[in-house]
């Protein structure tokens, strides 16, 4: 065909009738935030991190509400007990620990609980003979809760009556007879409540060891030892309670001794704990050296950290945005002076700021507000400089000039036209303040620069520094706070990375 000379009749008018207009878009426009959200959801690791953060948040929020323990509950007997969870006991999360013991140690741990048909030794993992001394060495699996066994307590008359009443009602024995004229074979343990039964054979005390064991090395306990030796007052009747000199006298086992304020009792601590607190002790993360529940302390520490971090990031957001906007928008001499101020504030190392604030303010407003001020004093600089950069980039663009020509005020130009460009970096920056505050706070409390314990609070850093002391013997005190803070940091960094990518429009469609 000859394209140069097309005949006229081949041409047809397109749409001679009707208007010609652009086709209306069928699809919905995707806004900046919606787009960011869509791309954030695609990033699997960031979503996982967000879920972890949410779980940690909920942990901090809910645990103090539902936990049967209190932060200032300091149980003198359940000190440094190991993590125990009824749900996960099959995972080895059962509050037991392997430990190596001599014969005497084995006898001691084994005897705890014999009285009520149990034992602190859950399993004998290994027995061996020490080649030098010829003594037996046991590798035992010991329950750290049962290890407490019996204790002596002093109660008032009312408590004693309630306790007796409780025993009769439930049939659970709490009060156990008092060993009279009690002597022990074990040099190390002379005064504990845990040696009701003696070994059947009396041997010399000095060796600290008894010889009466069966062929497997198990100690042979004698139930009626005291009766045989005529050391107590008669029949062992677990639910019958008498006080010496109170009744038939001389014929009964001693269950309580009267003293000035009330009664001196020997109780099975496990059941006594249940009587006092209404539940058995099960510490999911164990307890620390003061007998505080680590699970709850951690939740409280996390609460404090989160609260502080969120407050700091919100305040810093406000200060940073306003400061950065003013700096970036006006520029010139204003910028120069304000930059010098940030230079100076930025030049002081944070630890010094925190220390000075603690020294000056902690007594007046309390350590936490003092810490908050320290974080606020220099924390906004990062956001301010981000905002400032964005302003320098956008303030001379045509659309801003156009808006100014149309008479928009400075305020409107700043917040309506320029500021939204910086939203992405600001949100990312604000979110990333949270882990840095949590980290700094844990560091300052760890180092003891900020001391929260005096005001009855706890923090992750304090728990870490407490745990470090007992690292060799009870690593669980350290493990959980360290795990918590590591998990939090990893999750927040992943989350922050995801946010940064999602808010960066230039990456749009890069991975698709």
């Amino acid at each position: 065909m000859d394209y140069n000379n097309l005949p006229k009749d081949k041409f047809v008018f397109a749409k001679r009738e009707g208007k010609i207009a652009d086709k209306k878009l069928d699809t919905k426009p995707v806004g900046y935030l919606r787009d960011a959200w869509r791309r954030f959801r695609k990033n699997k690791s960031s979503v996982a991190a967000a879920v972890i953060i949410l779980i940690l948040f909920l942990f901090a929020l809910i645990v103090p509400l539902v936990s049967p323990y209190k932060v200032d509950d300091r149980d003198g007997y359940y000190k440094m007990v190991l993590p125990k969870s009824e749900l996960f006991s099959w995972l080895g999360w059962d509050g037991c620990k392997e430990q190596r013991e001599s014969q005497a140690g084995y006898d001691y741990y084994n005897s705890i609980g014999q009285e009520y048909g149990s034992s602190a030794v859950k399993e004998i993992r290994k027995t061996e003979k020490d080649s030098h001394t010829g003594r037996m060495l046991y590798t035992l699996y010991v329950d750290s809760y049962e290890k407490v066994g019996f204790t002596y307590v002093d109660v008032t008359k009312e408590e004693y009556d309630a306790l007796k009443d409780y025993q009769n009602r439930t049939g659970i024995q709490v009060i156990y007879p008092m060993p009279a004229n009690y002597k022990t074979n074990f040099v190390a343990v002379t005064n504990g409540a845990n040696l009701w039964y003696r070994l059947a054979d009396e041997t010399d005390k000095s060796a600290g060891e008894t010889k009466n064991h069966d062929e497997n090395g198990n100690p042979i306990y004698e139930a009626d030892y005291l009766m045989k030796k005529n050391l107590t007052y008669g029949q062992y009747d677990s639910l019958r309670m008498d006080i010496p000199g109170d009744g038939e006298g001389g014929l009964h086992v001693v269950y309580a001794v009267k003293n000035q304020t009330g009664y001196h009792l020997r109780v099975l601590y496990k059941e006594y704990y249940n009587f006092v607190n209404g539940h058995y002790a099960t510490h999911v993360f164990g307890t620390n050296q003061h007998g505080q529940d680590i699970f709850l302390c951690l939740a409280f520490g996390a609460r404090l950290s989160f609260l502080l971090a969120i407050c700091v990031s919100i305040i810093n957001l406000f200060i940073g945005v306003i400061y950065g906007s003013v700096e970036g928008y006006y520029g010139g001499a204003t910028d120069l002076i304000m930059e010098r101020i940030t230079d100076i504030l930025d030049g002081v190392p944070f630890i010094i700021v925190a220390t000075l604030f603690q020294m000056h303010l902690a007594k007046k407003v309390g350590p936490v507000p003092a810490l908050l001020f320290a974080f606020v004093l220099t924390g906004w600089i990062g956001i301010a400089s981000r905002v400032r950069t964005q302003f320098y980039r956008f303030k001379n663009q045509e659309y801003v000039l156009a808006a100014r020509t149309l008479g928009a005020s400075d305020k409107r130009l700043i917040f309506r036209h320029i500021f939204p460009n910086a939203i992405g970096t600001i949100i990312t920056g604000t979110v990333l303040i949270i882990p840095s505050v949590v980290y700094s706070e844990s560091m300052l409390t760890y180092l003891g620069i900020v001391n929260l314990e005096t005001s009855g609070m706890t923090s992750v850093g304090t728990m870490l520094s407490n745990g470090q002391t007992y690292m060799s013997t009870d690593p669980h005190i350290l493990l959980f706070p360290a795990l918590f803070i590591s998990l939090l940091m990893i999750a927040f960094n992943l989350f922050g990375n995801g946010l940064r990518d999602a808010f960066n429009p230039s990456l749009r469609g890069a991975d698709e």
Partner: protein
Amino acid sequence: MLKYVIKRILLMFVTFFVIATMCFILVKLLPLPNAKAQGRDYNLVLERREKMGYNKPILTQYVIYWKNVFSFGSGDSKGWTPDLGLGEQMYISQNVYDVIKEKLPYTIVVNLYSIMIAIPLGLLFGIYAALRKNKWQDHVVSTAVMLVVSVPSYVYAFLVQYFMCYKTRWFPLTVASRETATLFSFEMFKSMLPAIFSLCFGTIAVLTRFTRAELSEVLTGDYLLLARTKGLTKNQAITRHAMRNAMVPIFPQILGEFIGILSGSLIIEGIFGIPGIGKLYITSINLRDYNFFMALTFFYTLISLVAGLVTDLSYGFIDPRIKMGAR
């Protein structure tokens, strides 16, 4: 260029003096520790304080302080020993400067070892990840870096101490004492290793991430394509063209780290019992020894300012294309 450098240095000193003045005044506003405490001679403490000028107005004290610092030949006149005051609560009546001088080498040596391990490893991992970008090797390295960067350094210290010191007993629990080992002896090095490990994990990760980001950006450049086109092998192109350009931002980073080692790590020093200035600083806070606190505050401030300045300026020295101070 020179003009710009001088201007920046002068500005830095102005900033430093403003901060120093603020800190001095804030510290001097604090109440002094109780003179009656700890069974010391009450009158002696008061007399010493009077002699050290504690009862003068704060600004007078400030002037005296700087005069002492810059007075030559004070002390036992072995050259210039700045008089930073005497220890009041700890190292009583010892010159603060002497104590710091004695402690500083430990901090520097530990950090120097750690950075000497960290730099080559960090660069190596970073280059490897950049060259294998978006392959599984890169993903492994990047994920590891992500995890290592996030976890706080003291958690590494706990892990290292628990597994390498308690469980396996490869290393002693704390750093060898000064009486038994000199600073550069093997025994000292061995006992410092746990601390060095805990310090270098984070640095390695940061360097790896930075190197990977910079190098992979450089690798996409057109001039690298040209280098390959004109016949260079891949290795030649990477070492002669890509690495040199990637080093422009990496080197200042390393330089900054190098100066930063002076300030050390407060937590790691505490955990491993390194007798460095970080520990000294914490003790000075807990015991409220203001002379030590002030001297160390000035020291830390100066270090952070110098590190920032050197990092900034080094860009201009490394890359002639960057003109410092140009509008």
